């Protein structure tokens, strides 16, 4: 398969924070519509990996290409790539001074120059999709964590992205609210958007992922389709990790 048929390619990506080697020769090819789950202990570089994909982190060596565009240090290229990549954060990062609806309108009206009326229609459509349209005029801090995260997902969808990145989307939520967010993510996955998800929700990984990747110490240690990944881990490191997260 040639390079251009992949939605995302990472070739020998290396990254350092000062002298600390965070990403070591990360190679990853992701097809259009593929659902990838990345897991691993904290500090293993999984968040850093997906943050490199929309240039929230710079990398020093290697090559990343998104939907045929090489990611280089150029304002226009970076903006072009970001307009195709939506990112959902652990702490939601909604803009607290704007209402839910205004949060959703910001990128479409200012970055994609959509007329406001059209942007509102799109925003309301996605708010309905994440089942929160009745809260459109509230402020983020008036919503529960689960609701905020669903708004954050809708905010990304409003820019009509090719790729969605999820950076531990349920880790900051109360246990009661995890499922309402996962439900939205499952629905999204069924629609064929390319998804990369850093998460420890193993149920979600089994249900949705085409492929699961295990990272440790800045490297990809193991990758497999989900059932093999969980039922038949190969490396000792992954066996230990799975033991620890599944033991209770």
């Amino acid at each position, binding site marked *: 398969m040639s390079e251009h048929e992949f939605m995302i390619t990472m070739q020998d990506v290396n990254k350092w924070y000062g002298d600390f080697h965070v990403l070591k020769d990360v190679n990853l090819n992701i097809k259009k519509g593929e659902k990838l789950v990345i897991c691993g202990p904290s500090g293993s570089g999984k968040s850093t990996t997906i943050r490199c994909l929309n240039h929230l982190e710079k990398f020093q060596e290697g090559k990343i290409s998104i939907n045929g565009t090489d990611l280089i240090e150029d304002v226009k290229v970076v903006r072009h790539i970001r307009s195709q990549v939506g990112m959902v954060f652990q702490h939601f990062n909604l803009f607290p001074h704007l209402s839910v609806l205004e949060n959703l309108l910001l990128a479409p009206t200012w970055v994609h120059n959509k007329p406001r009326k059209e942007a509102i229609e799109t925003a309301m459509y996605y708010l309905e999709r994440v089942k929160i349209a009745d809260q459109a005029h509230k402020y983020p*801090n008036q919503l529960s964590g689960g609701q905020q995260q669903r708004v954050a997902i809708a905010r990304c969808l409003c820019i009509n992205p090719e790729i969605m990145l999820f950076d531990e989307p349920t880790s900051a939520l109360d246990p009661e609210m995890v499922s309402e967010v996962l439900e939205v993510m499952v629905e999204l996955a069924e629609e064929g958007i390319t998804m990369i998800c850093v998460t420890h929700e193993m149920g979600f990984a089994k249900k949705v992922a085409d492929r699961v990747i295990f990272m440790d110490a800045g490297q990809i240690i193991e990758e497999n389709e989900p059932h093999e990944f969980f039922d038949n881990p190969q490396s000792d490191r992954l066996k230990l990790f799975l033991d620890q997260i599944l033991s209770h």
Partner: protein
Amino acid sequence: MATYTMKEAKPAPSTSKGLLFWLRENLFSDIKNSLLTLVGLYFLYTIIPPLLNWMIFDATWSGTKDEVVKEGARWIFIVEKFDQFIYGFYPESLHWRPNLVALICIAFLLSMKFVKNINIKIALILLFPVVCFVLISGGGFGLEVVETEKWGGLMLTVLVAAVGIIASFPIGIILALGRQSHMPIVKTLCVGFIEFVRGVPLITILFMASVVLPLFFSDGIDFDKLLRALIGITLFQAAYIAEVVRGGLQAIPRGQYEASESLGLSYWQGMILVILPQALKISIPNLVGSFISLFKDTTLVLIIGLFDILAMVTLTNSDTNWLGYEVEGYVFVTMIYWVICFTMSQYSKSIERKFNTEH
């Protein structure tokens, strides 16, 4: 196994509310507190009645100074010199112009509250200072020119403070952003400017503006003295605003920057739409604090020969017909300053409430 039914909420017991409860809880909760309350009350008793007598009950409000018989304040001095306190040496026949400007200011503030159309708002904001300037200084539309030397009194105080506040605000924000910039030259210039200005007293900057600055220009160019003071005050205030805004910027979580970047907003879009609204909101109390102290600092312009309200009081006190009225004069100025500063701080509280989205 045990199960429990949900209970109804009950009202709080009557012993924990009401005036008596409040008094006992706050003023007489124990012996020490009760003693302090009594001492405080006695202190107020010794201060307030004499003060009220002097200011109001024994005060002379009208008549000529030879008819004064009462012991209290002789406010006739203020009445007599009122126009000078307010307008300085501005020609009396033209006092309607500053008065009109004051009305326009009120109308402008109200229009900012009630006009919803953003284009009209911007037009008003741009038009407002031009109209005010033309009205006060004259020189167009058949208005007689009034040189800035004649401007004075409360009018000058408010004008210097208003220009200083309005002009320094955008400059301060740009300096604060520059200070956070990743571009070394921009950053160095901004840090250098801010630290230099903050390390120098305002008086020095005013002296520099009025004495040193003209040395750099050839003889033909003569800056207006007031304009030089305004530039000095604006730059001085901008450095302080920059530090206040920087404090606000630092309080914004990293995630807000990342979210706005990841949505594809450019640096300036992210700053203007996402970061600054939040940072400025946090900074409101400190910004207003800094505006209030600027308002009081404007009185230093008397050093370079401009007559603000305080200078006018000092000046009228040296009128040989009106010697010995310092106390009334300064009490009057104190009240004017206090009313304006208190209004500003109350206004800031109301904006804070308005912008509060954490219900």
